[in-house]
């Protein structure tokens, strides 16, 4: 069963007006093009894309088709023919022929049934080119960066490339993390638009809306706290609001979703737990850090601490939760803020701070020339509850 934040309901949607306007303007100005919406984990890319699809669907001259690559559900689109959605599993490359058939029918392209995908692609492309209808095809694909390379390559080769062969077409994608390697210039030179976190007022508005729809059990009195704890991240706000647990546990659940869902698939559940706990610790480090600065903080006297820290760093980098910038590594701010809040409320911060302080003092003592640097290791203005 899908978690509530994976179920789309247009009635719950709020804001993003400027983005809709921008898409509209783009559509009007250009005859064709590719837009990619990028955003941090939990910034609301999927919801936005679903809502965009819904709105485009209402325009007669447009022929939107949505492909959701990860399990989601949208009951209000249940009867739509122009959508590929599966609430139980991820999109696979073997789904491509099925999508192509749906797409061809929807776009009124004459296709000849064949099992050969290359032929199918050619027929599709040719059909698109000679298509009688004046409507403009718009393909929307959610989470294209995050899917496996082989799936993305298949989609690009058999769906995007034939579509891009037509004179009038728009492709709207969303993604997070590393930009994939595209072969088509249109994709390489796509418009990249950032989806920023929501302002807090909108988060609150969304919660109120959900409450009105009877979808939240939470009391209104908790909404300010949820807004504050989410740090403007809609996903955190949603998970927190949906959670039946006390707020603090709900925040923990939301942090879990933020971290564990983006970790590479080859990470075991056990290791995911460990990563979560190390990310919590790292969120308290106030300076850009190197592995060696934090290995003892993360793993104490474990003789394998350097290797383990190295591995955690690799995983965090691969998951785009951490980057190297300026003087060292930084954890994404979208993680740091909610984690610090959670630690503070949960009371675990004291233990971590004690450990971090010990490391900071040791480093200050052992490396007097950079004492000032390590004095800043502990979070500034951070007082525990």
């Amino acid at each position, binding site marked *: 069963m899908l978690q509530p934040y994976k179920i789309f309901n247009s009635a719950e949607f709020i804001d993003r007006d400027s983005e809709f306007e921008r898409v509209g303007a783009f559509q009007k100005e250009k005859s064709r093009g590719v837009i990619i919406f990028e955003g941090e984990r939990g910034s609301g890319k999927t919801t936005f894309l679903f809502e965009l699809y819904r709105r485009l669907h209402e325009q007669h001259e447009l022929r939107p088709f949505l492909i959701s690559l990860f399990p989601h559900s949208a009951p209000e689109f249940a009867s739509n023919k122009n959508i590929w959605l599966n609430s139980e599993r991820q999109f696979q490359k073997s789904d491509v022929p099925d999508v192509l058939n749906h797409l061809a029918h929807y776009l009124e392209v004459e296709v000849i049934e064949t099992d050969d995908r290359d032929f199918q692609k050619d027929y599709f492309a040719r059909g698109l080119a000679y298509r009688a209808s004046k409507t403009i095809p718009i393909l929307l694909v959610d989470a294209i960066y995050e899917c496996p390379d082989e799936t993305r390559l298949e989609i690009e080769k058999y769906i995007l490339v034939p579509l891009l062969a037509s004179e009038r077409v728009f492709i709207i994608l969303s993604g997070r993390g*590393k*930009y*994939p*390697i*595209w*072969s*088509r*210039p249109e994709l*390489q*030179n796509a418009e*990249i638009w950032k989806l920023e976190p929501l302002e807090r007022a909108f988060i609150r508005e969304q919660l109120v809306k959900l409450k009105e729809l009877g979808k939240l059990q939470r009391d209104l009195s908790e909404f300010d706290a949820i807004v504050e704890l989410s740090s403007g991240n809609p996903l955190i706000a949603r998970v927190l609001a949906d959670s039946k647990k006390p707020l603090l546990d709900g925040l923990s659940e939301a942090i879990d979703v933020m971290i564990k869902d983006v970790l*590479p698939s080859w990470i075991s559940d056990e290791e995911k737990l460990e990563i979560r706990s190390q990310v919590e610790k790292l969120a308290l480090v106030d*300076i*850009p*850090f*190197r*592995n*060696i*600065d934090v290995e003892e903080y993360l793993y104490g006297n474990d003789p*394998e*601490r*350097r*290797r383990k*820290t*190295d*591995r955690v*760093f*690799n*995983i965090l*980098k*691969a998951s785009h939760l*951490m*980057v*190297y*910038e*300026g*003087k*060292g590594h930084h954890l994404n701010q979208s993680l740091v803020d909610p984690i610090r809040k959670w630690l503070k409320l949960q009371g675990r911060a004291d233990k971590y701070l004690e450990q971090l302080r010990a490391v900071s003092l040791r*480093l200050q003592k*052992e*490396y007097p*020339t*950079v004492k*000032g*640097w390590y004095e800043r290791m502990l979070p500034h203005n951070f007082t525990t509850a």
Partner: protein
Amino acid sequence: MYQPPFSLKKLEEFVGRESILNQVRGWLSDGQFHPAFFSGEYGVGKTRLLQRILEVARKELKYDGVPAHLIDLYHFRHHSPEGLARAIFACFENSDNEQYFNAFITARRKLDAARAGGDSKAIREQLQALLDSCKEGVKKMSAERGVLLLFDTVEQFVYPTGARFAPAWDWLKGWITDLPRGAVLFAGRPAASALFQGFSLSTLPLGFFTPEESNAYLTAVAKRWSEETGQSVSFAADDIQKLHILSQGRPTLLAIFLELRMRDPQAFKDLSEFQTETFEQKVIEYLLSQPELGETLKAAGRTRKGMDPELLAKIRGISLREAKGALETLGNMSFVKTFLDDERIYLHDDMYDLLDKYVYSNESDVVEKQAAAQAIYEYYRDAIKQKDGELKEIFASLTWEGFEQSALSPEAYVDKIREVETSRQRLKTEFIYYRLRNQVEKEGKRKWYEDDPIHAGLKMYYRYGHEAATSNNDEILIPLQIELTNFWLSLEEGNFWKPFIEGLLLVHELWLKVATGQNYWDDVPRLENNLENIASLSNDQRVIFHALLETWLGTGLVFAAKPEYDRAEKTFINVFDNLQKPLVDQRLIWFKNVVLSLAYRQQAYLHHTRGRFEDAIRGYQEGLRYNRMINFRHEEATLRNDLGLSQTQMGKFRSAFENMWDGLHLRYDIAVGPRIALSHSSLAEHFIFTGAYEDARKHAHYAIRISEIVGFRRGRAFGNLFLAEAARHFALSTVGPTNRLEHLEQAKKAIESAVHLFNELGEHAAIIQAKLEHACLYRDLVRVETDSSYKKNWFEIADKMFRQVQNESEKAGIEYRLVDALCNRVWLGYYADHFDYAEEAAQEFGALEVLKPYWLKNGKFADETQAKRNPILWAQIGKFFVGRGMIALKQWEKKKQEESLQASARFITLGLTYSTAFEEDHRGLREGRRTVYQAIATLDSDELTRFCKYILDTENSEMISKPSVLQSLMRDHALWLEN
């Protein structure tokens, strides 16, 4: 984790520089010779140009004299003439052009063998042959087929201040720009032009890419990428323009950028937000944010001497398997350099500089830098230890039973030793580079100045340099010198160590001569003069270097073909006087102790050579005392071995054995073949003294075997000398074989070999020692020979040889050999029944000036103080008296004249008294006792009674404490009869 989709490394497509390429095409076709220098800043594409020229020459022109690859002077191993010659040869190895280098191949093989054996003379000769044959090979090839040589990164030949060049340049510049046909092309930064002053050579400046060239380059990359990956790529025109500006037309930076773009097309999507500097920084940050790649790159930037998986694993704390994968990923990047015969990864200079600028200079790097330095330190320490272990194993296997059935041929041993030794030398040189620059934590008590990496690095440098010099290993000395010279030049004026290093480099010049067996002592005045000219050299520093140079002067005077022992003695005394004053600067204490330890050892060796073993023992013990303060295992091994040898001579067998045995094990631990061989030969000598001939022969065989495998002539010489002596004594010992002659024949062969080798080596004291043994062999042949004509012949040879030794020892001032030779002539007379001859020798012996203090008078030495200086002479006098006593006994047997019996009793009483004064139990005395009581046992009761009376008379007249040794001996054997 991380799979690079495309590698720019594979992109050899060269763009631009077409006019230069056309020019080179012409050069390789016009039958003339063209030396040229491509001058350009970092990142301008010099390497790529040379690679392209190589490709054009090989594929397009099918040029006969084409090399296999470029010669990159980044490596310091190419900075020595030999290293460069080997690199030049490697360009043509296994090609049609190899034929021009046949003489080189021979010289190289001989040089390797000489090196393995620490044969300094052969090293010097073969090194010259190698350099000459390389030069001649290139010249001949150039004349017949034309030649192309491509030198990259030549600015590395110009050392930091520009005032000094790599030693290889002195060799190369003499001939490389004057060949008949072809082209020699140098590429480097403009600073390299200093090399070419006074040369007729075209300089072609290489600028950065023009916007058109940048455009063409990007297009070519896109095309290649498309071909390789099946995906197309294009660059917007304004992107190209921005990129060109941001990269300043530097192809290297352009390539790094492109590589990032291909990995992540979104990388730097909006170029307008960058300035050149922020762009560079972002490139670095982007790379460091990559999983695996980031940390690997950060580690690689710290290891300018190259990084292999083991080192990466240590720095990152990951497993070897993980490190291999990570390094492979890094290896595919365009900014990585690899070299043909080196599995390690290097970065382009540009990347090292960028990392320095944006990562390593931050305050946030201090801890990580220190941790990496520690890991590098431990890596090199362990790697060197491992090589020591491998070599130890090889040398130890040469002493195992069943060695003869070993699967390895002697040649295979040489190759194997050479291989391990070469990599150990490389590790040591690189270790110095890091040690001088990086502070590391070491366990144990520490003093404030020991944290200074330069202090630690210089101690290590001294150890390696001294060890190489005294092991005839010139090969490591040149790269060491290059490392230190570069470090010295990089130091700021006013640095405490800067003038000190300059002084150390002067000592290094001397080490080079020591290692290659050249006369170094005549250079000492010049070096001392240069020392005076070093600006800012502190008084303490001057005193230390002066003492060190003087110590080497003294050493040279001992080892010279015409030794000057007295002058050497004075020199050592001066050294100690000069080092009396306490040092002002505590940082120099280690170096002062090192000089003191060495000076005591060399002075002790002088005393040993002259037979002053008590003095020698005291000297070695002092040397060891100072060695404890410097922890220098190589020196400790020599000190212990030599101390043991002196103690053996003094009959202190237990301590002698313990010291020599410890020395042997230390030498196995540090695994230097020639030194191990010398330890075995020392043990052989020791066992001869103790009378354990089988052990002596065993160790002599080990010494010979190891020396033969490593080609160490001095070791073979000493091994044969002691094999001869052991075989000779064994042949004549009580428990000796029945086939005495066969053993003496073996001894004869061995000693002939030893004499021959020592003559070749020119080591004066050893030649005398070997000749004496040779003479003793003939004396013993006289002793066992039954054929009178042979006997006469052997006698004449022995006599001639003893006289020769006598003369040479006298000239050299080696008193105990002179005395020994003369004493042996008395015994020769005894064995040959040539009493007049013996008497004549005895008269000469009695008149020896040197022995005047040693004669016993009223139970005391004539000059107690003097006589105690050289107790070995007591033993010689003892042997002389016993010899005379035996002659007198023989005469009595023949003529039964009572005065002969009386003389015999007197002489033997005196002889055993002298011998026992030296040591109560040693091989000579034991043999002497046996000879005596066997002879006395033939007397009847009446005769014995008289003999005993004469002994008592002698005890009384000479005031010898009673019972005398002879009386005790006779009582012990139930031969004492008294009225």
